[in-house]
């Protein structure tokens, strides 16, 4: 049965949910306060790197990330097909570089539990490391090589998602200002600041770092808040062969010839400005990783707001008292990676289908108010 779906928020999560729901035969209306992809999603480095990101725990979040990584090859093809647009999707693999012998134990711990999930990673050093990534600093004594990790050019990916949605018939309304939800006689209505009202069978909340605002209407606590990421890019630089991770940041070469380096984790409210201190810190560190950067300055600097949560897990799923409301937010550092799986879970929740991975840990009602 065709459902009328309202999606609030046009970041990568809202767009992915729209793409999947519309593809499955529902009628989606996507509502965005400014412009699609204008917030965190357009700012991201586009790494699809759960094995580097997740250090300690084989928990449900790891499973969610791994599943999404595995969905990517097929998913990105579909997005390209419906959009008739191309974007960079690069199976470069990654290197997690370490500077101390004491880091080997940590890498071994991670490798040993991830192996049980079929992750093919290996510690490489010396000549082999040098051959794989000649530009790397000699102070990096070894690296964990994860051949399955990939990256995507996030701004183009988000544009393609938006185009694919439009071509599939999603009705996209942007520049609406901050929407609210009103309840009247048990009926939920989405309201724009100019008074325009939108109604549907289901409302999907994909409002990223702004999601705490829904505490006003629903009787739950939604501890989602912004953590700013400052990031920069260099040009005219020898590209690296892999995504390069370290304890302090990452570097990734894009097909357009730039080298993207991120990112800070600042507590700065909803401020998206770039600070000198934030970028200098990245620059200083980058030179320790890639000596070729010693006399280079980034040509481009920007920042975005990651939707962080109280326990580090996203909020994905239905509200029990409002089964017509589906949350899909709080993806923090991994929203690009998690976009395919989140799109699919939203569509499954809409249709009452089973999910390919357990989502109980992501229950949007799990937080109590003290």
């Amino acid at each position, binding site marked *: 049965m065709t459902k009328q779906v309202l999606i609030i928020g046009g970041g990568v999560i809202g767009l992915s949910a729209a793409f999947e729901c519309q593809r499955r035969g529902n009628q989606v209306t996507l509502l965005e306060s400014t412009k699609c992809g204008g917030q965190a999603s357009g700012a991201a480095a586009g790494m699809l790197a759960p094995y580097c990101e997740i*250090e*300690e*725990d084989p928990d449900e979040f790891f499973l969610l990330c791994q599943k999404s990584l595995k969905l990517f090859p097929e998913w990105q093809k579909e997005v390209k097909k419906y959009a008739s647009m191309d974007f960079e999707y690069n199976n470069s693999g990654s290197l997690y570089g*370490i*500077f*101390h*012998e*004491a*880091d*080997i*134990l*940590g890498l*071994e*711990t991670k490798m*040993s539990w991830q192996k049980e999930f079929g992750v093919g990673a290996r510690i490489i050093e010396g000549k082999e490391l040098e051959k794989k990534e000649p530009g790397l600093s000699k102070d990096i004594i070894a690296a964990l090589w994860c051949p399955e990790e990939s990256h995507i050019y996030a701004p183009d990916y988000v544009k393609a998602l938006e185009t694919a949605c439009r071509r599939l018939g999603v009705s996209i309304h942007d520049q609406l200002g901050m929407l609210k939800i009103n309840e009247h006689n048990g009926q939920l209505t989405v309201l724009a600041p100019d008074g325009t009202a939108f109604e549907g069978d289901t409302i999907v909340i994909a409002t990223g770092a702004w999601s705490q605002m829904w505490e006003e209407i629903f009787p739950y606590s939604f501890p989602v*808040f912004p*953590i700013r990421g400052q990031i920069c890019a260099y040009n005219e630089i020898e590209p690296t062969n892999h995504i390069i991770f370290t*304890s*302090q*940041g990452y570097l990734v070469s894009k097909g357009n010839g730039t080298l993207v380096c991120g990112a800070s*984790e*600042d*507590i700065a409210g909803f401020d998206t400005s770039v600070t000198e201190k934030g970028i200098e*810190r990245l620059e*200083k*560190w980058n030179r320790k990783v890639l000596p070729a950067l010693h006399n280079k300055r980034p040509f481009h600097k920007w920042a975005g707001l990651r939707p*962080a*949560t*109280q*326990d*580090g*897990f996203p909020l994905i799923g239905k509200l029990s008292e409002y089964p017509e409301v589906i949350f899909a937010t709080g993806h*923090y550092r991994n929203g690009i990676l998690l976009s395919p799986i989140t799109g699919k879970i939203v569509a499954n929740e809409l249709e009452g289908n089973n999910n390919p991975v357990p989502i109980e840990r992501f229950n949007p009602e*799990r*937080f*109590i108010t*003290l």
Partner: protein
Amino acid sequence: MQKNLVIAGHELKSRLFLGTGRYPNPYIQNKAIEASETEVLTFAIRRVNLQDPHEDSILQHVGGRYFQFLPNTSGAKNAEEAIRIARLAKASGISDWIKVEISKNEKTLLPDPIETLKATEVLAKEGFVVLPYISDDPVICKKLEEAGAAAVMPGGSPIGTGLGILNPYNISLIVEELNVPVIVDAGLGSAADVTQAMELGADGVLLNTAIAKAKDPIAMAHSIKHAIQAGRLSYLAGRIPKKKYATASSPISSGI
């Protein structure tokens, strides 16, 4: 008046030592640290940007307040490595306190007692304030004290397991036999575990995962702070002996 904990002449109002790893994000980390009222923060030296500690991805967020830093040698597989890492940390100026943590097994991360003893001896002689992480064995704990440890940190159970105190008997023996402070480190999962450690007479506890990975780390930090106070007071107050049968709490009047 309760006495404060003193380690190497340094007086601490809080008996909580807190790890800085595994928090979901810096905002939650800061709030949890604040709520816990801890004065001692521990972190792995290998992870820190030693040239610019104030620019480090974790340490930069705790700037502005005064903490006693307790860098640890986690990841070291033998005494030699641990000593090398400790010297790096001291040279960087972040602290002359060092938590010696040496393990070989990547699954259990249990401490290697022999290598820990070696490293403690050397580092104490070099003037470090050494706090070794060690198994809950009273004999090795005593030897560490003799080797110059400023405090000894026996584990309740393996790091990050939340299994609590597996051998309370040993912990109470360690408390009895040592003159330096005993800080129960590793494996504590909740307020109950912390209260138990303090009731056994520990001088303090070191936690990380129990707070960082709680659903609400800030609330858990509050809870742990109170658990330490409750356990400490209970220890000082002196618990009643355990008996097999009931004793009426309102005594039957004897005189008629």
